[in-house]
């Protein structure tokens, strides 16, 4: 990456991670959540970690916070090897993690009390932080009395009051509504630009591409399963950034393209699903909805991903899975950050409810080996029944238990919609009972 930006030259190194991996043991062999991650954080920069669910970005954040241990790799904080939770690293949580039984003031003071700060000094510093973050007047309120936005402000005040060197933020705005989130982002950026914050550097974990481009000086894009840094992007725009600026839009588009194409980075060919490919919970209603939206005005069969995400109010984590599975099923195609309707997709949109099921069944059996396998096993067996564990165990050999569950649940939902098999949750068995034309 060229380094010809207008940003101030990055300052002293705060954190450095070299070749950090984290895995969990599974049936004798190790499965990686994070695989060989390298990363440096410097004074004076906001760094974004962008990835989808399953990319291990939150795990990486918690490794830096000293909350979990990496399986291997070298981590240095201010030049020293990291041992346990480091002093001077404060965290802001997605769920706010405010203690509901403490007032705003007590929540903010808790971290100071732990550092052994005198009560008088504690109070002074807490009030200053509350003031800075715009919470004055709420000192005696309990978190449950506050709106989401105000709660997250308490989260910020609690983190800032201990004068941390590094501020870690784990999707801090994703539990807030759009307007509140934007206000909080700009407030934080203003304080940062005016150098009113004691912190030297900020690391944000997010799955929101626009948010990353809006806030960060540098963005690391992580791949999923296992998590690896696949790209590092410098954001050259000065604050306050204009989301409608063509250069801003271009960068957002590029990252969308990067994140949807990264699976076939090495080959130009689309990789078909395998029996052991994880399937992510996507409802058939959402698939049909996206196809219909694509076919309609103003897209007429082709849409820009960021644009359609915004119109349909879908987060990246909602949009990508549905777009990708439509791509795999052959109803749509992903190309350079755009999504295109295929002929089959067009036929699906025009079909009646019953015809849609037939068409979906055909594509499901052709493109999703797990669905085809379940159907085939049922047809082979006498009585045309098979227990859930039969498939569960097979999946668990190649993925984590949770993922195996999700994959099987997804296959069940799609299979039920397509009426290629039926499933009884009480007895946990698949069968071909009540399935039309099954012999």
């Amino acid at each position, binding site marked *: 990456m060229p380094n010809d930006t207008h940003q101030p030259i990055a300052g002293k190194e705060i954190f450095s991670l070299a070749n950090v991996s984290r895995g969990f043991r599974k049936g004798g062999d190790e499965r990686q959540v994070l695989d060989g991650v390298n990363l440096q954080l410097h004074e004076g920069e906001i760094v974004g970690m962008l990835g989808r669910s399953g990319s291990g970005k939150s795990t990486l954040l918690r490794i830096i916070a000293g909350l979990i241990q990496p399986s291997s790799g070298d981590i240095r904080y201010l030049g020293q090897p990291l041992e346990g939770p480091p002093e001077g690293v*404060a965290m802001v*949580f997605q769920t706010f*993690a405010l203690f509901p039984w*403490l007032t705003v003031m007590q929540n903010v003071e808790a*971290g100071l009390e*732990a*550092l052994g700060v005198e009560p008088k000094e504690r109070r002074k510093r807490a009030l200053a932080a509350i003031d800075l973050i715009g919470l004055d007047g709420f000192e005696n309120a309990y978190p*449950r009395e506050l709106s989401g936005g105000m709660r997250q402000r308490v989260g910020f005040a609690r983190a800032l009051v201990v004068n941390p060197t590094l501020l870690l933020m784990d999707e801090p705005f994703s539990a807030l509504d759009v307007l509140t989130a934007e206000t909080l982002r700009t407030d934080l950026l203003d304080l940062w630009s005016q150098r009113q914050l004691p912190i030297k550097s900020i690391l944000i974990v997010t799955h929101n591409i626009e948010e990353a481009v809006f806030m960060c000086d540098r963005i690391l894009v992580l791949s999923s399963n296992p998590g690896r840094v696949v790209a590092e992007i410098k954001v050259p725009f000065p604050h306050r950034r204009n989301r409608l600026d063509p250069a801003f839009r271009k960068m957002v588009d590029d990252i969308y393209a990067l994140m949807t194409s990264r699976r076939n980075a090495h080959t130009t060919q689309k990789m078909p699903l395998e029996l052991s490919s994880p399937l992510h919970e996507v409802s058939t209603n959402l698939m049909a909805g996206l196809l219909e939206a694509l076919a309609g005005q103003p897209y007429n069969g082709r849409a820009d991903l960021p644009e359609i995400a915004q119109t349909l109010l879908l987060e990246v984590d909602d949009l990508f899975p549905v777009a990708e599975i439509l791509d795999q099923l052959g109803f749509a195609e992903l190309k350079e950050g755009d999504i295109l309707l295929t002929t089959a997709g067009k036929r699906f949109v025009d079909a009646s409810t019953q015809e849609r099921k037939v068409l979906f069944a055909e594509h499901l059996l052709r493109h999703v080996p797990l669905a085809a396998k379940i159907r085939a096993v049922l047809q082979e067996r006498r009585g045309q029944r098979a227990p859930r564990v039969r498939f569960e165990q097979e999946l668990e050999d190649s993925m984590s238990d949770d993922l195996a569950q999700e994959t099987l649940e997804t296959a069940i939902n799609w299979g039920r919609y397509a009426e290629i098999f039926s499933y009884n949750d*009480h007895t946990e068995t698949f069968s071909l009972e009540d399935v039309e034309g099954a012999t």
Partner: protein
Amino acid sequence: MTRVARPFIPATARRLLPNRWDFIAFPLIIGFLMVSSSGIRQTWAPLADLQTEIISLDPANLPEYALRTTLRMLAAMVASLLFTLIYGTLAAKSRRAEKLLVPMLDILQSVPVLGYISFTVTFFLALFPGRVLGAECAAIFAIFTSQAWNMTFSFYQSMRTQPRDLAEVAVNLRLSPWQRFWKLDVPYSMPGLIWNMMMSMSGGWFFVVASEAITVGDKTVTLPGIGSYLATAIVQRDLHAVGWVILAMVVVIVIYDQFLFRPMVAWSDKFRLEDTVAQAAPESWVLNLIQRTRAIQYLLRPFGKLLRTVARMRMPFSLPAAIHSESRTPLSRVIDWLWAALLVAMGLVAAWKICAFVLAEVGLSEILHVFGLGLITLLRVVLLIAIASVVWVPLGVLIGLRPKLAERIQPLAQFLAAFPANLLFPIFVVAIVHFHANPDIWLSPLIVLGTQWYILFNVIAGATTFPNDFKEAATNFRIRGWQWWRQIMLPGIFPYYVTGAITASGGAWNASIVSEYVQWGDDKLAAHGLGAYIAQTTAAGDYPRILLGIAVMALFVVLFNRLLWRPMYAIAENKLRLN
């Protein structure tokens, strides 16, 4: 196999009702007890020729005794269930009935379970003169009184908190009250009801042991079972037999849990309202076996069909349909007023009758003395719950924070809570007799011997479900030591602790009757306290004094709950809620 999820709140802990009607319910219930015994005493004579079986201490008889005890438990459970469905429905659907029924339930559950038995045993024996059936009924009724109130509260509360949209759908589909009852009321209440059944059942073992061998005055009733086997072992000073009966009880509880309750809890999971799948759905191998074996399914089919048909009938009679209708006509207001006046009058009459009955034999100074004994027992309950808390809260937290360990300890704690502690009493008593220890001090631990485990397993559940984000925030902000307990963990588990402590203290009051007055062969040990007073007056068959003792204890329990646990529960619900 283990569920470490948040247990349901015991239904009794969170009722949301006015309490001025308690003043009427209280005399009514005590008066009812009085009538059931004194009105019947003329028919006492036929009891003399009641044939009771001789209990043999041969361990070979234990399986049969255990079976009979279990059957008694089952019969009581069926009775409790019927009572729950009828009483709960009436209380929830009729505004006027609610006014009386709910405070009555509250008092009913404050009356010590073993207090009922001395009165009801005479009633049932008179009902079936000279036959064992009467004694059986009395024992079953005792177990019933330990289970029914809790379950009824749970059912009533579920009915009252039904989601509005489901109720509206029932109206919109024009379900008859009978159909609605089976389609909505019962299924919606099922998870809470089953959980409370399980809790009640845990308590039930204690009372079944206590109620199989009872002496009221000069009449001793012995029913073959685990409890009477124990009683015989105590009279004959046979420690080996005590060992055998403990073993038998362990086996029975494990079988009961595996074959009845675990399947029921796993099955009732399908009635949960949330659309999301629980993180750890309850599992039961027995249920899996039943559901997955086609032969069993085939056998069960006719029963299912019968039940469905019954539930689908429209039924000509109508249950009170309107739930708390808003509009009240002047006429209905007059009826309300008359109804209230009638209740007040009944309460006053009952109060007057009780006073007359008690005061005829007991002087004012003795009444004061009994209140003094109540204070001693109160002190004992408070102190021992406090000691148990100091021990089990920190341990429970440490266990709960280690999921692997919690998974192993939790079933053990639940088992210990169900195990009737009175089976272990002889071991303590032998030691106290041997060392000539002071019974006022050394009998005290017995009252929390069985119920302390409720504290442990609730605290473990609380620590297990403590949000991970909070743990991480505490670590991130370097909160440790005393500050960690004070600001993070203790408030976090407080709601669970209160739930456990309420159950534990309720159990302790009940246990005081059997644990303040114990015997081993001819050695009789008594501590000062209200429990011992009730036990001794029962043994003497002195009805006015039994009634006095029970009334005072019920009063103490009601006040204790109102003044201590309710406010603590309110704090837990309002201030310490996690969301």
